[in-house]
């Protein structure tokens, strides 16, 4: 891909605009998140004598790793002003695809490849609907959400697929070293890659530019539709990968797998400071938000707080973390005004 001077200049301009205007509140957001994470960690250790235990801390990571792996490309997608509601549906369909591959007697590599491939294909369909047929992302993916899960139900009904080879359990139950799970290592590696792509490459800056102002990005020579398409495909692929992990952890496939996860995944993204209006967000924030969600749900679980109360807490947290910076900004503006 050749770049003209003008394109480059426009890129840099868009980039500078985005970064200089938002850099400082950005940083403050992540510090705030880090503070909340540390506070929650402290609170957990204080409230339950069982919290500071290597096994507990290891088990805790399973509360968020799979969701967080999907939250990473979701962050990129939302930064580019799109959204994918169908991720949990994709996970179900990918899981069914893997289950059938396993039932047909294929080996481990084929099963895993099938899961990721199914995810990529579902994501590509979402991307095609949005870019070729110009269906708004939220409408398209609400449709495919039902479509993908519907297919999973149509294929499986009330049956279960569990002909997985024993080695398959490693992805969702295995440990990379000592008590650090394979899932956690994979998530951190993917987070590192996503962070580098978003914050240190031209591709990342273009994604931000698309989200800040799609029209301006288009006129700056960015192939907006192509970026959108690949972002949807990437998100689908990540959902397929998360499905490999979850299916491996459960050791079986049912069409109801990962029901309701799309909201948890989007919650992590938004909690991480990614603006739902696009053009703003960081991977560090998403990682911290994933950790926070894990700490909060596991910590409350340790205290045997019912799930109903837990979802109220998570909702309150989301509103609180989003409302606080706005409140600060308004206060500061008011102070400046007087």
């Amino acid at each position, binding site marked *: 891909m050749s770049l003209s001077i003008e394109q480059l200049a426009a890129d840099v301009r868009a980039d500078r605009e985005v970064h200089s205007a938002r850099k400082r509140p950005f940083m403050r957001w992540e510090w705030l998140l880090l503070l909340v994470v540390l506070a929650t960690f*402290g609170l957990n*250790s*204080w409230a*339950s*004598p*069982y*919290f*500071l*235990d290597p*096994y*507990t801390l290891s*088990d*805790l990571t*399973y*509360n968020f790793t799979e969701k967080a792996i999907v939250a990473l490309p979701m962050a990129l997608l939302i930064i580019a002003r799109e959204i994918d509601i169908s991720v949990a549906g994709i996970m179900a369909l990918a899981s069914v695809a893997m289950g059938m591959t396993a039932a047909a007697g294929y080996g481990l590599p084929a099963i895993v490849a099938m899961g990721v491939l199914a995810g990529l294909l579902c994501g590509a369909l979402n991307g095609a609907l949005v870019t070729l047929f110009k269906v708004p992302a939220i409408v398209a993916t609400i449709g495919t959400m039902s479509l993908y899960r519907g297919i999973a139900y149509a294929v499986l009904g009330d049956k*279960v697929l*569990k002909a997985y080879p024993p080695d398959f*359990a490693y992805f969702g*139950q295995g440990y990379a070293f000592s008590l650090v799970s394979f899932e956690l290592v994979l998530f951190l590696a993917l987070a590192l890659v996503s962070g580098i792509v978003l914050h240190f490459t031209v591709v990342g800056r273009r994604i931000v530019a698309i989200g800040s102002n799609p029209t301006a990005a288009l006129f700056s020579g960015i192939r907006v539709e192509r970026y959108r398409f690949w972002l949807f495909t990437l998100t689908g692929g990540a959902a397929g990968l998360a499905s490999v992990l*979850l299916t491996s*952890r*459960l*050791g*079986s496939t*049912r069409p*109801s*797998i*990962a*029901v*309701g*996860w799309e909201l948890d995944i989007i919650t992590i993204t938004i909690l991480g400071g990614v603006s739902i209006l696009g053009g703003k967000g960081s991977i560090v924030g998403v990682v911290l938000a994933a950790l926070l969600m894990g700490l909060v*749900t*596991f910590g409350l*679980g*340790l205290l*045997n707080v*019912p*799930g*109903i109360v*837990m*979802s109220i807490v998570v909702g309150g947290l989301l509103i609180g973390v989003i409302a606080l910076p706005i409140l600060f900004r308004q206060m500061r503006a008011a102070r400046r005004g007087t």
Partner: protein
Amino acid sequence: MQRRRLMAGAAALLTMAGTTLAGANLAMAADKPVKLGLVAKSLGNGFFDAANKGANEAAKELGGVEIIYTGPTTTTAEGQIEVLNALIAQRVDAIAISANDPDAVAPTLKKAQARGIKVMSFDSGVAEDARTVHLAPSSDALIGEACLNLISDAIGGSGKIAILSATPTSTNQNVWIGVMKKDLAEDRFKGLDLVTIAYGDDLADKSYRETQALLKQHPDIQGIISPTTIGIVAGAKAIEDQGLSGKVWITGLGLPSELEGHVKSGTVKSFAIWNPIDLGYSTAQIAVQMVRTPDAVGPGKTVKVGRVGEIAFDDKGLGAMAKPFTYDKSNVEEFAKIF
């Protein structure tokens, strides 16, 4: 600066609090209570709330038992796994679960077992290698027999009866009907004459119409058995609408909350369903014995469970609690509040 000092102070305080708690824990270790995690399919379900009530009753009776009643918000396997991980982290002594998915929770339950936690299932079972025993609320033989006893009691021991079932392919109903047919051949039920079986497909309107047709075609029928919670309600309604209340009786398996009105109006003299309180009571009794006397509970063994009596587990670790509990005018109101 001041804030930082404040934080440091708070951190120190937290650490101190943590140590105190840990210390208190050590002190209690001498005769620490048996902690039993009772995991429901989902919270906010009256059936499991009632089971928890029974489990706490057993805990009081046994002494030194703490019941942790928990479950996910929605009936998902993933939600139950998070709950199970929290219970494992708290180092409970035993877990009793009614599973949303018999396979998906199995790896986590095996992890619990590997960490020394006793695992059993109740109500809705899990894969055989992920638990020691499973306690079913009742057995097919007991359910079939209970239905015949109820109708025999309602129509005074002899007369023509019919069955209103779910679909012709419903596994549970067909097994129970099979048991009933076999029992009808025995001397104790010789007064009962099974005329026909109607199928309401577990749909309220179809069950209602089938009952109407049944009553027209066989005016001499005195009793109907409906071994399905939907059929029994629709059937009772049809009998009442035809003005046959007190002449034709209906019984079977039903929910107290749905049948309270029909019991009061006299169309249903009595009916049966498993008693969730007894189920929770028995579950807690068995789970505690698994912790205190591990050798006493397992496949092929018979376990004493307090007021419920004895429960025998087969070689696969499956056990049935008791015959279905009978509900009538005397207790339906109380249980209608529960489920």
